[in-house]
C-alpha cells in the first residue's frame, strides 16, 4: 500500500504551451530547448545511477509533461528504466493537460507504462479557464476524462483551483459536483495563491485583481472538505482528497514523510539521508552544468535534528496522519499549548500522534509556531 519507505523519483519537465499567470512553478512557454534539455536529462539520470534504492513511485510533473511528443516521453522513460530500479507495483504518474490528450496520446501513455494520470482540469467553465490563462476548454477536459476511463486508466486524479474573485460557494460546489460525475480516484483542490513573481501577484498589487477576503476563503475551505467527505472522499492533506487511501498519491506523500526522493530536471528537489538539495532554476544553466560534467545543483542543505523535527511537525500539521509524538524530543514541544490546542479543537491526539482537525488544517502554517 502507501506505507512504504522506498524512495520516489520525480522528473521536472520545464515546458508549457503557454505560461499561466498564477503559476509559480519553473517552466517556459516554448519547446525550442527540448532537444538540448533531453540530452542533459540523460546525463543527469546517469549521474544518479546506483545512488538510490529501488523506487516505488515515479512522477513526471512540470511544467506540462504532455507538451512533449510521445517519442520524447518514451525516450525519457526508457532511460529511467535502463538506469534505475523500480518496484513491480510502482505508481507511475504523469501530469497531463486536457488539451494534449487525444485518443492516440492516451493509448501511448498507457503503453509507455503510466498507471496514474493527474489531469490539470482547474475548472469546468470556459470563462474561468480563460481567466486562469488555461489553453484548454471545458469540453476538452470532459472528453479527456471520459477517454482516459474508456482506455483503461483506473487511477485518475483531477486538479481544481478555487478562491478567485467572483467565485461563489454555489459555483464552486457545481464545479466539484461536475468533477465527481467522473468519479475520479483523486482530487487536488488548490486555493488560488498569489505566488511571488507571477503575473497574478503583480495584478493583485496593482489592484487589477482582488483576492477573496480571508472570511470568504475560510468558508470555501471547509465547504470543499465537507462536500467531498459527504461524497466519500478522504481529506488526507490540506489540498488533497482520495476516494480510498490506496488512491492517495504515494509519490507526494514521500515529500511529507521525509522519505527519500530524487528530483531530476531544472528546479527539482531531492532528499536523502537528511540532506536536501535542489537544481538550478534555469534550463540553460541546467544544460550547461551537465554538458560540462557537473551536477546542476544550486544548493544543498543538511537538516539538523532540530530542523528535521520542525519540518516533521510542520508537514504533519498538513496531513491526516499528523506527526508522531514519539519522534519529538519531549522538551521541544509546548505541552501547555498542546493541550490548549486540543481543547480548542485544532488538534486531537490519537495513538500518540498529533492529528490536525478540520479547523486545524485551516491553521496548518501556524500550529508549528505554537507547538515548538
Amino acid at each position, binding site marked *: 500500500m502507501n506505507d512504504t519507505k522506498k524512495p520516489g523519483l520525480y522528473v521536472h519537465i520545464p515546458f508549457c504551451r503557454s505560461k499561466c499567470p498564477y503559476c509559480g512553478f519553473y517552466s517556459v512557454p516554448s519547446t525550442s530547448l527540448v532537444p538540448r534539455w533531453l540530452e542533459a536529462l540523460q546525463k543527469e539520470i546517469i549521474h544518479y545511477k546506483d545512488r538510490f534504492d529501488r523506487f516505488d513511485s515515479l512522477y513526471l510533473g512540470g511544467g506540462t509533461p504532455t507538451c512533449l511528443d510521445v517519442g520524447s516521453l518514451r525516450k525519457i522513460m526508457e532511460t529511467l528504466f535502463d538506469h534505475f530500479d523500480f518496484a513491480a507495483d510502482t505508481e507511475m504518474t504523469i501530469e497531463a493537460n486536457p488539451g494534449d490528450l487525444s485518443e492516440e496520446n492516451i493509448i501511448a501513455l498507457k503503453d509507455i507504462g503510466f498507471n496514474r494520470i493527474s489531469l490539470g482540469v482547474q475548472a469546468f467553465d470556459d470563462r474561468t479557464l480563460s481567466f486562469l490563462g488555461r489553453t484548454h476548454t471545458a469540453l476538452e477536459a470532459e472528453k479527456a476524462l471520459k477517454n482516459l476511463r474508456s482506455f483503461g486508466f483506473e487511477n485518475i486524479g483531477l486538479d481544481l483551483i478555487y478562491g478567485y474573485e467572483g467565485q461563489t460557494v454555489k459555483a464552486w460546489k457545481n464545479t466539484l459536483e461536475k468533477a465527481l460525475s467522473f468519479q475520479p480516484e483523486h482530487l487536488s483542490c488548490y486555493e488560488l495563491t498569489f505566488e511571488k513573481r507571477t503575473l497574478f501577484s503583480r495584478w493583485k498589487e496593482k489592484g487589477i485583481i482582488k483576492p477573496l477576503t480571508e472570511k470568504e476563503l475560510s468558508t470555501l475551505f471547509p465547504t470543499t472538505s465537507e462536500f467531498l467527505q459527504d461524497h466519500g472522499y478522504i481529506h488526507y492533506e490540506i*489540498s488533497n482528497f482520495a476516494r480510498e487511501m490506496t488512491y492517495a498519491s504515494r509519490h507526494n506523500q514521500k515529500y511529507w514523510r521525509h522519505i527519500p526522493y530524487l528530483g531530476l530536471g531544472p528546479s527539482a528537489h531531492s532528499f536523502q539521508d537528511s540532506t536536501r538539495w535542489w537544481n538550478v532554476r534555469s534550463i540553460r544553466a541546467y544544460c550547461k552544468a551537465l554538458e560540462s560534467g557537473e551536477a546542476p545543483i544550486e544548493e544543498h542543505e543538511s537538516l539538523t535534528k532540530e530542523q528535521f523535527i520542525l519540518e516533521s511537525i510542520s508537514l504533519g500539521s498538513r496531513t491526516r496522519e499528523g506527526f508522531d509524538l514519539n519522534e519529538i524530543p519531549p522538551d521541544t514541544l509546548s505541552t501547555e499549548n498542546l493541550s490548549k490546542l486540543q481543547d480548542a479543537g485544532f488538534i486531537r491526539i490519537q495513538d500518540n500522534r498529533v492529528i490536525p482537525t478540520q479547523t486545524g488544517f485551516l*491553521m496548518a*502554517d501556524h500550529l508549528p509556531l505554537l507547538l515548538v
Partner: protein
Amino acid sequence: MTNIRNFSIIAHIDHGKSTLADRLIQKAGLVEDRDFRDQVLDTMDIERERGITIKTQSVTLPYVSRDGREFELNLIDTPGHVDFSYEVSRALASCEGVLLLVDASQGVEAQTLANLYAAMEHDLEIIPVINKIDLPSADIDRVKEEIEADLGLDSDQAILCSAKEGTGVDDVLEAVINQIPPPSGHSDGPLTALIFDAHYDPFRGTVVSCRVFTGHIRPGDTLRLMSTGGTYKVEEVGLFRLPREPKDELKAGEVGYIIAGIKTVGDTRIGDTITLDTDPAPDPLPGFKEVKPVVFSSIYPISTEDYQNLTDALEKYKLNDAALIYQKDSSAALGLGFRCGFLGLLHLEIVQERLEREYGQSIIMTVPTVEYHFTLTNGDTLSVDNPLYYPDPVTIEKAMEPYIRASILIPERYMGVVMDLGLERRGVNSKFNYPTPGRIEVQFDLPLAEVIYDFYDRLKTVTQGYGSFDYDLLDYRAGDVAKVDILLNGEKVDALSQIVHKERARTRALQACERLKEEIPRHMFKIAVQGAIGGTIISRTTIPPFRKDVTAKCYGGDISRKRKLLEKQKKGKKRMKMIGSVTLPQSAFVAVLKSEGK
C-alpha cells in the same frame, strides 16, 4: 607640564564639534588620510547612524606651534544634545578651557547657552568659535552680535572657521595654546586622578578614563579607589590616541586611561578619585553633581530567565553611561526588572538600543513617565515615578506634576501650528522672541508629561522638520491626574499602565487600544483590549482572531522554503512576551505612548 592643554569642544547640537575635532586630528597626523572617515570620534554605530555624538571622546594630539614649541593637546569632543549634558559636565571637570562653537547660520541656541554656563561654573577659559562660515546662509555679523548680547563674550575674540573646509583651523589651534592656561598641580605630590568615564573591555576588565590632577601613576603601582578603599595593581596607563597608546606614566595635568585589573564592574564609580595606596591623598577631588533623571521607565528581559544577564549587562553599561540611574523593580506581567531614570527621551532610546546592540539583551521598556508628587488625605506626601505605585485614588488630596519651560525655535510661518500644539499640550505663559528676522522663538510652560508623550514627533510633523526644541525644568504644579490601566482579555497588564492628566484619560485610553490593536498580531482567539480607570472601562477594541493561516501547496522544494520561514517566525516570536495567553511584541509597550500609527 607647560606644554599640555586640556580642552573640550562644546556647542549646541550639530554646530560642528565632531567635524572640527576631525580637522584637529588630521592636523596632528594621528590618522592616515586614507583611513579617515568623517566624525572619526563618533565610534559607536548608533552615533554614525544618527549622525550625532552621544559619548564624549578624548584624544591626545601632538602639536607644534607656529613658533616651534611642542604641545600635547587633550581634546574632548562632547555631545550637543541636551539629553547628554551630563557627559559634557564631566568632561569639563578635566579641562582648563573650551572651544565654544556657534553655527554661523543658526547662531546662538539653547545648548550654546547651557554649555557656556557649565563652562563658566568650572571657571574655564572660553574661546568662541564661529563655525560653518562657508555656508551661503552664514551671517557672521549677526552671530557676533548674539555672542556679545546673549553670551556676554567678546566677539572680537571669536575665531572664524569652517570645520568642513578647514579654514581657520590653525587659528583655533594657536588660540588653544595661547589662551588656555596649562594645567596646574604638581607631579610629585600624592596622586589625585578623577575618573570621568569608563568602559568595560571583556579582555582587560574596566578601562578607566581619568584626569590626573596631582602626582603621577605608573604600571606596577597599587592604586586605591577613594570611595571604597579597594586597591588594585596598575597594569597599564596611557593616552587616548585612536586607539589607546600605552605610556610609562600619567602625570599631573594629563588625561588618559588606567587599566588595573578591576574585574568587579561595580567597584568603579564615575566621579571617584584614584590615589596611590602607598602615598594616599588626604581628600578626594570634588567629583560630580548627581544626575537628576526626568523620565522614568522600567526595563525587563523578554525572557524572565535572562534577568541575571540583564543585571550584568546594565552594570557594565552603566560604567559607560553615568547618567543612567536604575534600581530593582518587578511587575506581575513581566517579572523582575529595573526601574530606570533617564535624562530625556533620546537618552532612553539610546539606552535601549545600546543594551540590545552592544550587550545582546532582548528587553522590554515600559511606558515612560515623569515623577508625580502626591499629598494624601492623611497628610503624607509621596513621590511616584512608576504607575505600579500609584496611590489609591480616594486617598489623594492633591497631585503635582513637573513643568518645563519649553523653547521652540521656528521659521515664522509655523507660529500658528506651534501655538496650537502648545495649547493642545496644556501649555501656559506663552512668550515670543524674535532672535532674527523671519525666525521666532516660542516659549511655553508645559507639563513634562505632555512632552514625553510624542511631543517631539508632533512638533517635527507640524513644522515639517524645521522646529528645534529645548527645555529647562521649572517646578511642580498642581495637576489632575489618573491612572489608566490596560486589560487584555480582562487581565490587567501592569506594565502597560500609564499616569495621565484626567482630561486626557479617555483619549489616551482609546489611542492606547488602537495602537495595541495595530501592534499585537492576530491570535487564534479573539482578544479584547480595554482601557480602564479603576474599575470603569473607558475604551475598548477587539483584535479578531485569524480564521485561516495555511498555504495550499507544499511540494518538494517548498519544504525547505517553508521551514526557513518558520524558523524566521520562531525567532521573531522569541522577541515577544507572553502575557497570559496573549503574545505581545516589544513594540507594543512603547506604542501605547504614540498618538498616531506608523
